């Protein structure tokens, strides 16, 4: 399949060029986000009846992991409300650039932090506390508020969206898996960018802002750090930016050599496996350990969690690579071939989320009518009984997702191995073992 330029369609192009459609969605999302914070802090402590838990961890999560990330990549980032207040303050404007910009510090993020290690750490921190976070409304409310205020604070200190680019725990995994999505933003003609004066897509101009993600579109080759904010489409004076429909996983043909991105793949793969065992498994001891933060059992859980992610998973992966022979260094092979885990990890998350989302989706209707759990019945659905959905097709759907992910990963492994001139077999065997474990945990 060749690329199809979606921005050739006038309706889509106009929708991206105009700031108003995006602003309308932003405002709705921001209102929902602030309401989720308030619901978490002042609503019922019963998670399954609180808007913050039901709409964030069931409704939003389902849309994000089952639709947005696989099909739209960073599509969520394009409408995410978290950076908005900070960005508006930083710019001193909501729509077009003002005559006078506010005097914030506008510092460049120090070079040592210009990678995704902080995102890896922030995701792991949330992951270690996930059992409490997923079930306790006021903790969810506090975390949502903390993310909003951190984004505002970083916007006042650093230039552009430092929070989204370097710290957001959700943005980290969306960026990783956005490489597999069939949507991309790219330039049409490289030569136009080379001769373009002032590079307004990056530096901004009187008609629009420079890339808030600190990306020069002319050098964009993969989705990882493009937040699809569409600002460059508005500022490009040459109409040289396109949004394309492309084959799935097109970015995975270009293996990364960055260790922060390689470990992100292990973190996401490992977290999906651990969650499947702890949250969806029948072992109460694990659930107790994961939930009782600060207890000795929790510290053991945290130790096992981190050992799996930083020791066992990359350790066996490295052992497999030791058996391959090639000119590239082991580190280079490790980083390049870790790209294989991206389709696998994405499908692990899809399979895990299917189970969690379908069995709890009926809470959405009840929470819609009574979002704070205060006995309201706004739309007449407050008394909707809990009923798991589609449980009969759950196992086939999960099996299909996992086996499909394995095939996808095996093909990716072959291409990545070809790039570094080694055999893909050890990596494919690794993926098969990981998939078998996930199948055992979920089926």
């Amino acid at each position, binding site marked *: 399949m060749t690329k199809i330029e979606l921005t050739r369609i006038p309706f889509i192009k106009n929708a991206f060029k105009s700031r108003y459609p995006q602003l309308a969605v932003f405002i709705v999302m921001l209102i929902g986000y602030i309401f989720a914070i308030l619901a978490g802090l002042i609503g019922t402590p*019963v*998670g*399954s*009846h609180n808007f913050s838990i039901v709409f964030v961890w069931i409704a939003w999560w389902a849309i994000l992991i089952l639709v947005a990330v696989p099909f739209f990549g960073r599509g969520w980032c394009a409408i995410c409300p978290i950076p908005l207040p900070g960005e508006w303050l930083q710019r001193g404007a909501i729509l077009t650039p003002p005559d006078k910009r506010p005097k914030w510090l506008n510092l460049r993020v120090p070079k040592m932090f210009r990678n995704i290690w902080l995102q890896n750490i922030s995701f792991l921190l949330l992951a270690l506390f996930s*059992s*409490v976070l*997923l*079930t*306790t409304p006021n903790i969810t409310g506090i975390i949502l508020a903390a993310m909003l205020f951190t984004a505002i604070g970083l916007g006042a200190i650093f230039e552009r969206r430092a929070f989204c680019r370097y710290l957001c725990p959700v943005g980290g995994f969306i960026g990783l898996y956005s490489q597999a999505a069939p949507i991309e933003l790219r330039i049409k003609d490289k030569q136009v960018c080379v001769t373009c004066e002032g590079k307004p897509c990056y530096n901004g101009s009187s008609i629009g802002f420079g890339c808030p993600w600190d990306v020069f579109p002319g050098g964009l080759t993969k989705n990882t750090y493009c937040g699809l904010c569409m600002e460059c489409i508005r500022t490009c004076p040459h109409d040289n930016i396109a949004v394309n429909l492309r084959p799935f996983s097109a970015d995975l043909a270009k293996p990364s050599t960055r260790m922060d991105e390689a470990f992100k793949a292990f973190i996401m793969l490992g977290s999906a496996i651990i969650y499947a065992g*702890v*949250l*969806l*498994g*029948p*072992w*109460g*001891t694990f*659930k*107790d350990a994961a*939930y009782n933060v600060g207890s000795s059992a929790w510290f053991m859980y945290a130790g096992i969690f981190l050992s799996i992610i930083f020791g066992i998973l990359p350790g066996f992966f490295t052992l497999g690579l030791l058996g391959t022979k090639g000119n590239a260094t082991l580190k280079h092979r490790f980083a390049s071939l870790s790209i294989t885990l991206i389709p696998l990890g994405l499908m692990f998350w899809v399979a895990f989320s299917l189970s*969690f989302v379908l*069995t*709890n989706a009926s809470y959405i209707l009840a929470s819609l009518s009574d979002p704070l759990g205060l006995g309201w019945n706004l739309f007449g659905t407050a008394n909707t009984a*809990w009923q*798991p959905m589609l*449980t*009969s097709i*759950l*196992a*086939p759907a999960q*099996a299909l997702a*996992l*086996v499909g992910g*394995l*095939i996808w990963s*095996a*093909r990716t492994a*072959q291409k990545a191995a070809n790039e570094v001139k080694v055999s*893909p*077999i050890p990596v*494919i*065997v690794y*993926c*098969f073992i990981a*998939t*078998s474990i996930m*199948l*055992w945990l979920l*089926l």
Partner: protein
Amino acid sequence: MNPRFSLLLILTAGLAVAFPPLPVPTVAPQARTFQVDAGQFAYSPSKIFVNPGDTVTLELVSTDVVHGIYIDGYDISFEADPGQTQTLTFIADKPGSFRFRCNVTCGAMHPFMIGKLMVGTNDWLYRSVGLAALAVLGVTISRKQEV
């Protein structure tokens, strides 16, 4: 997509679909009773093994707050107050692995209070692992043909 690869994928899927039926052990159905203790947020036993056709009676004993059991796939449920035993009898006529879960909001980790009912062998798991193995083989062979 490479035509050979497509062909192999189809062949792989076909093989998996055409898997011969797994042998079913001929065990005469019997009546089986299990006492299941439910406490925040686990069941004991957490895994229940029966044979297809068995008449299964679950005696649910709640050790702290109100708990219940909903069995996926069978779409049946019941609940028990603390200190009281409730029973549910059903015929395990659907083979496979089914999660059972608490159907009464019982505390923070309630959505994850889960057990497993195993009726005969877990065919889905074995077939899926077999399909995964065949798929890997298919992809590997197709690549070798391409090279």
